[in-house]
């Protein structure tokens, strides 16, 4: 199985506060990884380091076999940009462009960044919207959509660049429980298609049902990682059990 993501001894501090202490893990092609843990455990920072939104202080990161960060530091801007285009990120609060229609939100990057033909980009965008069940909303503006619909548009927007690996930063945290389901359904479909995904989430049922592997983080370190049956089962460490118990209450 090809390695889509390799992280070794990743470290990151904000000032004197260490947020990531020594993170190492790998993600294989088509794997779905759920990252769980209490607030402030460094989950989001980890994701932001992997997507280059934050610069890590040390360790190494390789995406699709391309080194991004090594012991010698970050690669040059051109390499980083190439790598960035292989990664997609779905934000907690969507971050759609409010002044563009749904369709243009999706086509803008393929047309302006990848220099794709506009008609072709629009065709692909419509396919993605169909997949998200939002075909009818192509001409709408983000403010006219529900949170769940906006999040599906932002997933379509990330997919339009055909990323090799897709990251989700608490994709359902800003949504009503009712709308959470529609996002989880989309992620499940993507998993079935073989999309490699790393998902920071508070949806434990989702981590259990969809993820191939679950990473439990706390205090900037990976406390435990393994198959859902392991972390959600009897063999899990006490800390993980304690954390999960609070969710099942």
């Amino acid at each position, binding site marked *: 199985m090809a390695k889509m993501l390799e992280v070794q001894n990743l470290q990151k501090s904000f000032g004197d506060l260490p947020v990531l202490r020594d993170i190492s893990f790998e993600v294989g092609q088509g794997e779905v990884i759920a990252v769980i843990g209490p607030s402030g455990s460094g989950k989001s920072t980890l994701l932001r380091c992997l997507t280059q939104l934050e610069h890590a202080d040390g360790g190494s990161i390789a995406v699709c076999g391309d080194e991004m960060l090594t012991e010698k530091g970050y690669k040059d801007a051109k390499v980083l940009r190439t790598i960035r285009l292989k990664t997609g990120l779905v934000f907690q609060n969507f*971050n759609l462009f409010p*002044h563009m229609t749904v369709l243009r939100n999706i086509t803008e990057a393929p047309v302006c960044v990848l220099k794709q033909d506009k008609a072709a980009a629009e065709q692909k965008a419509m396919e993605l919207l169909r997949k998200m069940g939002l075909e009818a909303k192509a001409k709408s503006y983000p403010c006219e959509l529900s949170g769940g619909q906006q999040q599906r548009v*932002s997933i379509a927007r990330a997919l339009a660049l055909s990323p090799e690996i897709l990251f989700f930063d608490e994709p359902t945290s800003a949504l009503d429980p009712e709308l959470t389901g529609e996002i989880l359904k989309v992620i499940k479909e993507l998993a079935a298609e073989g999309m490699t995904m790393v998902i920071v989430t508070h949806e434990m049922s989702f981590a259990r049902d969809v993820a191939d592997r679950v990473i439990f983080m706390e205090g900037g370190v990976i406390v435990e990682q393994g198959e859902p049956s392991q972390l959600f089962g009897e063999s899990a460490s006490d800390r993980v059990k304690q954390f999960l118990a609070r969710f099942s209450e």
Partner: protein
Amino acid sequence: MTGEETLHLFLLMLQYLLPTLKLFGFTLLYAIPLGMVVALLKMCRIKPVSWLTRLYILIMRGTPLLLQIIVVYYSVPTLRSNAHCPEFLRNLLNHVELKGDAGDVYMFRMILLAFVLNYAAYFAEIFRGGIEAIPKGQYEAAGMLGFSRIQTFFRIILPQVVKRVIPASSNEIITLVKDTSLAYAMGYMEIMYIAKKQMTTYSSLTPLFMAGVFYFVMATLLTLLFSFVEKKLSYYK
């Protein structure tokens, strides 16, 4: 004043509307782009650049526009007769013609310069506020999608800034219509100038009243225009 006189006065003042509009239009034409540049300079990470810009804005907003107009206007004749003026600058300034028709051009340019420098400072503060109000997530989303910094600014940020700054800018622009009357102090022949002159001729307040109506109509038209633009841009939040 008789009806005929009033009509005559109206037609006369209409001719002086053009210089007013010229000053107004050219000020906007230069002050808005310059204001955007100044806003970006103030947000510049290089500290001295940001400090200098801050000082410029402080001075422009901290002193009267009328004073600035007078200072700019008299800067050329005063500097070139100043003994401490460096040679190259004096040579440069000696080329400026101040008499006759060229003097009128000089006057307009200097008044325009003062207006542009002043209004750019105000616009800069409005634009900076607008740029800083754009959530960080917009930059991050654009970055994740591979947009360059320039593309992000022009395609993602600027269109949203425009919408945000329109209410405050329209205020500034309406103030500018009325501020053009300050050019009267330099003898620039605009509406205020002719109104004051005709007031003496007719010994009547009607010319001043009429000037007031001119400004009022222009300000009202601009108000209508901006509420229309705001409505046009309300398709998104």
